[in-house]
């Protein structure tokens, strides 16, 4: 029987009611008294020297409050990067300055050059068109490998070259890996592209800056996944506002997927301009602006080699990746191709030797940073593609080859610096074979062939690392931040609770699932627990939501704070019941004395805490409010096995996803309905990457796919129903809930399944196609079949 509340119940989402009735409070719904509007004039060339900016005509246009250029920001801090990677030779990465408005040069199409603040949006836009901008265009650096040629045009004149870093991992293993390849019975190699994507949350970014002259306090309302991080980065590094004079609010946020983690120029601008203009300043991104100003994702070019012995055991993996950073270093960009990618290269397999080389490259393109999965999809894609290719080269079953090489004993220390605590890779594969109906595939293929279609089955595994931690380790790896999470639990006199969490919900349903956990711990109804997030003024310092960390890290902090509450409440109860504290038990919202019928209700204890007439004041303080910070001992390691069945039309090259199955191990699960929804969405984004989505730049650095007319977002008729299972559960051993996280799994696990399936379909027709780069659009598939 499904539970009707608490941990493990598919509680309906309480936040849905406001979203379904138009009562949400998204940032663009916020309008301040007296607010002005800003429109940014953005570079329409990828690379050039600014010769002059004439704002005189614009300044005189109707409604214009003020026109800003880079000159107004001299002396203001650079947009900071939050992670410093050290290269193979022990040197820090090259790190360019990142101005709020362009200083002297423009380095990508979309870089803000000037900003007009006016009474209305329309007036700001009209005036921006009157700005005289004279740019001396320079050759654009677009191709990553050409960018590293000696004599290549430099994106940043003050850097040595376009190489941000050349990273080797694990550098000490390099020679041993090379020797393993020399000794291999078989080597499979594959060159592939992990295509550049735009995260495209449906809510475009918005920033509203406000300044209170009377108290010298600034407030920024922004579409962020982590308001405290924005407060720290913008306050301390950009604008020089102490945190106690700066409040950052991220209210209802319409999706993030990584791209709303980062601190952007527009946030700093609106905060700065609100003070400079002494009135609120609002910016709402258009979708067209979003394409050229939101950080992009992925964009790796990789050569991967897999060495096998004569018995088909994996003996070594060697990779060389070029990773695009774009024109500037976005907040966490350097960490994505390194510590979020290299550490995942063991995947689900006991390969003893691994060497990963990553060259991160500056180009005249929009900055690239984390997008759902961030490094882990790139690792999974190359590994699961090369394993599949090896199976086909060796003439063995792809699933059997995987199973033969699975890690089966835990904890397992990989050769890429991480230790998996738990997992059961055969278990998820068994479950996949069941839900995907592999036994019926042959009949389905025959049926497809009758209709002139090719049917393919693709399978892959994945391993994810969620809740990046602990802080002292990531600090050694270059993180300029801690990666703990926080929660304050405030119990009111009448027994209701407010949980103030440092996590941020922008679609994940924390207001429901977090409440389920606390309700279960105390034994009260979920409706008595309110979850508050997204405002630095009323939540403790927290690191926010990304990397599938909310329940594993934020949830753990909440559990720790609730445990403190319960411990104190037991003390109060023992006083009220005149019993020993050790004998007090909490069950179903009541404290009782073990072995007796004496009990006191939760509400009586909470009331006593705030009306302490009969209360042990000499021993404990009144009140019932506790805070906990939780810094995990390790990542968590969800895993799974995915299967995709496609039909390919050989006449057109069009790929149709007919069936998709996912068997995941997320450890313990709080709300199965929400978890399944997260997997659905991740799979859709993964299928989008595999079949539809692509950021196409031309040789001049112009983004050709810069609207929904050109960038193929997955639509309802592109996707099938998904078969999702998460009954295979190996709980995490190092957090109190035994949870692992589920936000990114679908996006990590699905692209290789799709490509493996298409290759299978084409090979079934005798085509010698071994790989097609994503997206597998009809023209690419047709060309591969007929090339």
């Amino acid at each position, binding site marked *: 029987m499904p539970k009707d509340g608490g941990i493990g119940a598919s509680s309906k989402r309480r936040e849905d009611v406001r979203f379904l009735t138009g009562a949400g409070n998204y940032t663009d719904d916020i309008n301040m008294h007296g607010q002005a509007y800003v429109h940014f004039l953005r570079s329409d060339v990828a690379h050039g020297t600014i010769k002059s900016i004439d704002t005189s005509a614009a300044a005189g246009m109707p409604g214009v409050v003020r026109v800003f250029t880079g000159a107004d920001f001299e002396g203001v801090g650079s947009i900071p990067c939050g992670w410093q990677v050290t290269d193979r030779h022990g040197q820090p990465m090259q790190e360019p300055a990142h101005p709020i408005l362009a200083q002297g040069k423009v380095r990508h199409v979309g870089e803000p050059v000037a900003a007009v603040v006016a009474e209305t949006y329309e007036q700001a836009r009209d005036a921006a068109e009157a700005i005289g901008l004279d740019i001396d265009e320079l050759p654009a650096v677009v191709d990553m490998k050409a960018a590293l040629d000696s004599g290549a045009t430099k994106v940043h004149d003050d850097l040595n070259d376009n190489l941000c870093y050349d990273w080797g991992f694990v550098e000490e293993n390099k020679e041993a890996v090379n020797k393993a390849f020399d000794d291999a019975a078989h080597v499979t190699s594959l060159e592939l592209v992990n295509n550049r994507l735009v995260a495209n949350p449906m809510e475009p970014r918005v920033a509203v800056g406000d300044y209170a002259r009377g108290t010298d306090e600034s407030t920024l309302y922004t579409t962020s996944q982590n308001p405290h991080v924005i407060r720290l980065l913008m306050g301390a590094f950009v604008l020089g506002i102490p945190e106690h004079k700066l409040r950052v609010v991220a209210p209802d946020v319409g999706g993030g997927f990584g791209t709303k983690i980062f601190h952007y120029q527009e946030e700093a601008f609106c905060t700065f301009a609100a003070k400079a203009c002494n009135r609120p300043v609002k910016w709402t991104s*258009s*979708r067209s602006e979003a394409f050229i100003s939101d950080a992009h994702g992925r964009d790796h070019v990789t050569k991967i080699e897999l060495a096998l012995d004569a018995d088909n055991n994996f003996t070594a993996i060697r990779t060389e990746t070029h990773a695009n950073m774009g024109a500037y270093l976005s907040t966490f960009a350097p960490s994505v191709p390194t510590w979020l990618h290299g550490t995942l290269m063991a995947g689900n397999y006991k390969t003893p030797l691994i060497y990963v080389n990553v060259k991160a490259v500056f180009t005249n393109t929009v900055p690239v940073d984390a997008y759902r999965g961030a490094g882990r999809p790139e690792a999974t894609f190359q590994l699961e593609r090369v394993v599949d290719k090896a199976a086909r080269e060796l003439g063995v079953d792809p699933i059997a080859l995987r199973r033969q090489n699975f890690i089966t004993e835990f904890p397992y220390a990989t050769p890429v610096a991480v230790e998996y605590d738990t997992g059961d890779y055969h278990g998820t594969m068994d479950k996949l074979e069941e839900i995907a109906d592999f036994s019926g595939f042959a009949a389905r293929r025959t049926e497809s062939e009758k209709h002139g279609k090719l049917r393919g089955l693709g399978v892959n595994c994945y391993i994810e690392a969620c809740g990046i931690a602990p802080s002292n380790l990531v600090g050694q790896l270059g993180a300029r931040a801690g990666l703990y999470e926080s929660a304050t639990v405030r119990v009111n006199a009448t027994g209701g609770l407010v949980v103030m969490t440092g996590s941020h919900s922008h679609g994940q349903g924390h207001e429901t699932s977090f409440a389920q956990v606390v309700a279960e711990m105390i034994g009260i109804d979920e409706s008595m627990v309110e979850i508050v997030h997204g405002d630095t003024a009323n939540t403790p310092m927290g690191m926010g939501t990304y990397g599938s960390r909310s329940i594993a890290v934020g949830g753990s902090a909440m559990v720790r704070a609730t445990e403190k509450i319960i411990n104190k409440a037991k003390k109060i109860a023992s006083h009220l019941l005149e019993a020993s504290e050790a004998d007090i038990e909490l069950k179903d919202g009541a404290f009782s004395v073990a072995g007796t019928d004496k009990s006191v209700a939760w509400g009586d204890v909470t009331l006593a805490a705030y009306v302490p007439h009969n209360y042990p004041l000499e021993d404990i303080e009144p009140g019932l409010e506790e805070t906990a910070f939780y810094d995990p001992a390790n990542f968590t390691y969800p895993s799974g096995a995915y299967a995709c069945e496609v039909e390919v039309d050989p006449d057109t090259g069009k790929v149709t996803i007919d069936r998709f199955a996912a068997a995941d191990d997320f450890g313990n699960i709080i709300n199965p309905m929400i978890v399944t929804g997260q997997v*659905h*969405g991740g799979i859709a984004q993964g299928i989008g990457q595999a079949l539809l989505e692509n950021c196409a730049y031309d040789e001049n650095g112009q983004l050709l796919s810069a609207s929904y007319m050109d960038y193929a977002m997955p639509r309802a008729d592109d996707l099938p129903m998904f078969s999702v299972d998460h009954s295979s559960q190996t709980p995490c051993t190092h957090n109190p809930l035994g949870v692992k996280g589920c936000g990114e799994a679908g996006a990590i696990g699905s692209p290789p399944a799709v490509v493996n399936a298409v290759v299978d379909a084409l090979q079934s027709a005798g085509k010698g196609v071994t790989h097609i780069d994503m997206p597998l659009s009809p023209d690419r598939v047709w060309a591969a079949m007929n090339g």
Partner: protein
Amino acid sequence: MAQVSMTVNGKAASGEVEGRTLLSSFLRDQLMLTGTHVGCDTSQCGACVVHVDGHAVKSCTMLAMEAEGADIATIEGQANADGSLNVIQQAFQDHHGLQCGFCTPGMVMSAAALLKENPKPSEQEVRAYLEGNICRCTGYHNIVKAIMAASGQDVTAIAAE
């Protein structure tokens, strides 16, 4: 600037607009009906769908002045008279047909228009009808399921949520 008057969710509404003011802007900025969302600028995403004289319309694609005298329905007017969720809204909650909620108003308004013209749509008909509504969170699985459930069809055979 010109005066424009219309009926919105059963009440008379009017305001001063420029010729270029979009219906979506008029609803959001002047009537403060911020449930209608704007997710793109090429009439692709459908977050702004409202009903104009009973027909689903992308309100970012229509000038406010074109709606002179029209009967407009937005997400704010969809709940039952007692404030409870209507059948479609309730089905979206029951089947987890929304996550971040940003596309949701457009999805609900499109679903209402679909079920008006096709009371028992098949899965493929729902998917085809939603071609102009983009969701980035749900993968559409639960949206399709919710709309079919709202039409009174048995969705228990569709994979569990």
